[in-house]
């Protein structure tokens, strides 16, 4: 592959291109901006800022096929990447089975941590459709929830695995 170069334009921004939920996107991002801030500025507000230091997992997105926290990535690093945010997984009118499972299991209270939880769950179930409870806990290691106490969320992941197996 050939090297890439990004240089600040006259507005003091980098011009980047990437694929977001299957759509080609061009954006101008500030040099200090994180991917999380850039996504929210583009209107993708399902990706949440809980801590901005990598500790809570609420900003997770699927980046080139892998879950990553978007607050620990400069926005310019998204150039040429493929990104899926929670909006690319399901919507209120057409929820993904994992989202249905979280609602049915009562795993959602304020909802702030849930996009990150869904991303982590999707990454787990894509790789391992029938995880043990221990594996579920480890895959959610980086997702903090200040409301629910986690029990229901572990149940939600089990229910999601069942739904997806059907």
């Amino acid at each position, binding site marked *: 592959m*050939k090297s890439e*170069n990004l240089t600040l334009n006259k507005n003091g921004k980098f011009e980047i291109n990437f694929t977001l939920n299957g759509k080609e996107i061009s954006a101008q991002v500030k040099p200090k901006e994180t991917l999380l801030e850039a996504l929210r500025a583009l209107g993708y507000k399902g990706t949440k800022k809980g801590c901005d230091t*990598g500790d809570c997992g609420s900003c997770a997105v699927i980046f080139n096929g892998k879950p990553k926290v978007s607050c*620990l990535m400069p926005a310019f690093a998204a150039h040429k990447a493929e990104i899926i945010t929670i909006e690319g997984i399901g919507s209120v009118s057409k929820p993904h089975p994992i989202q249905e499972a979280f609602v049915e299991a009562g795993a959602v209270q304020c909802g702030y941590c849930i996009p990150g939880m869904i991303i982590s769950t999707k990454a787990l179930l894509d790789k391992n459709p029938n995880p043990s409870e221990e594996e579920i806990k*480890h895959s959610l290691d980086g997702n903090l929830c200040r409301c629910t106490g986690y029990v229901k969320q572990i149940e939600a992941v089990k229910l999601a695995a069942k739904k997806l197996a059907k």
Partner: protein
Amino acid sequence: MPEIIEKYYSLKELWSSLNKLNKSRKYLAGGTDLTISLSYGEEKTELWIDISDIKELSLIEDRKEFVFIGAGIKVSQLENNPIVKKWVPALAESVKYYASPSIRNTATLGGNYVNASPCADGVLALAASQASVVLNLKNRRRTLPLLSIIKGPKKIDLKKDEIAEGFLVPKIKHEAVFYKMMARKRFGISKAGLCICYRANNKKLEYVSIALSSVAPSIVKAPKTEEFLKNKKIDQNIVKKACEIIKSEISPIDDIRSQAEYRKEIISVFLQRALQKTIG
């Protein structure tokens, strides 16, 4: 603040372009350490060189007497790699204690090393595995003992533009135990950590190498304890003595994460548990 980003996919490209770049510069790998300083406005460097997809840094290779692990390897790639599991079990073991799954998909082993933190889990495992670091500047390579260029937190003796290319681990048959104390069971920075690589035969430790985290300004080895344990048959008495020796050879400090006395105790408890494990 970055003004120019250059991204290279091979060392050849990197070295041939470097002469043309006349700005203050910095390498970017996974960015988990760098992005935080960027967001806080602490980063003044104008040119950032993205090395996260350089192919030579992403290799894990079984070479004659050594295993080579590229500095660009992401932590999540270590867990189930058969070469790593066989020859560098400490590193495979360290993964589950290392940050969270989504950070492990981003963070690299090279970034963990160059960041030179006394809590670095990857460096702890590499140090116990007797690794050397391979540095590269325009294809001039230096292979040095892993800890020899780490001078303290965030202080490392690299030449201008020199990169950590990877790590060489000698192929010695052994097993490993990795212990890390943190504020909760998983996902936290170490208050104190111990990693031991060993081979036991009939309860005798034929091979033993011990490294410690968060008890000194950088990751350290425990040479006196190793020397004492080598070729000893492990029993209650030996365990007790080894625990005393290890406490006497470290001088941790009090800081926001923990207290010196607690750290000493924890290291001694970890050693005791680890030695019990070596004899099954």
